[in-house]
């Protein structure tokens, strides 16, 4: 965005090419520093909210139908057992389409997205996820009719996921 402003200023004030390049370079360095510091810090619940809105196409998020089994306290966040069950008949015309799993305080909130089909038989998965620190895990279930159901579960971590940050 910053570079666009500089292109405008080039047209309006006819700055010498070298100066414009220098300005552009300075803007790039500033952005790089900002980007570098923010990329290493944890994802904020706000960023997770944005990501969730992206995944759910800003649809209305309803309550219910999704049950999360997650330990309330874990010694090792790097391998946290997560079980998600969704109330769905899993028939040809009414089935769970996708499950989006987000961890709001991991370095990157995205954990995984699972895609189901009527052949999945049962709307349930069990897996192991990285929980970097004590936080809330968010699961959004996308049904075949386009509706979304949201569930959250709190997980406290005695020791974080290490490499996951």
């Amino acid at each position: 965005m910053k570079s666009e402003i500089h292109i405008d200023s080039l047209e309006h004030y006819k700055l010498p090419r070298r100066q414009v390049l220098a300005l552009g370079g300075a803007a790039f360095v500033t952005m790089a520093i900002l980007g570098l510091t923010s990329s290493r810090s944890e994802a904020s619940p706000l960023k997770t909210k944005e990501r969730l809105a992206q995944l759910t196409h800003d649809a209305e998020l309803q309550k219910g139908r999704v049950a999360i089994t997650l330990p309330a306290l874990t010694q090792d966040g790097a391998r946290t057992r997560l079980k998600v069950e969704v109330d769905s008949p899993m028939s040809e015309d009414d089935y769970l389409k996708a499950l989006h799993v987000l961890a709001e305080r991991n370095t990157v909130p995205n954990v995984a997205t699972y895609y189901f089909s009527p052949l999945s038989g049962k709307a349930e998965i069990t897996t192991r996820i990285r929980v970097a620190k004590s936080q809330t895990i968010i699961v959004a279930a996308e049904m075949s009719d386009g509706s979304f159901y949201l569930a959250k579960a709190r997980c406290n971590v005695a020791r974080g996921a290490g490499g996951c940050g």
Partner: protein
Amino acid sequence: MKPQAPRIRMPSIAKLGDVIQIKTKIRHPMETGWRKDGEGKSVPRNRITRFVCTFQHQGQNHEVISADYDSGVSADPYLVFYSKVIGAGTYTFEWQADGGNVYSTSVPMSVAELPSS
């Protein structure tokens, strides 16, 4: 750590219409690319990014379940899911990793005869 042969635990025979449980596990570090080794050098990213389970039945491929994995999936990805048995066929499990590596395995499924009465 090299990826090991994937491990699958599931019944090899079931009745038509049954819902079976499938347990899958593969040995993989799921390296995020953010970690540093003992000498302070970055450990290159090496992740499984996608998992697909398909069922081959009468020459047709049906997708049972698939998943896009991001950084939040633990090392040695483990996944338990279910499948409805629609006939005899073969289940194929495929893990796609960074660098174009693909690990896969197949398990045949047969259908039990219905008791004659």
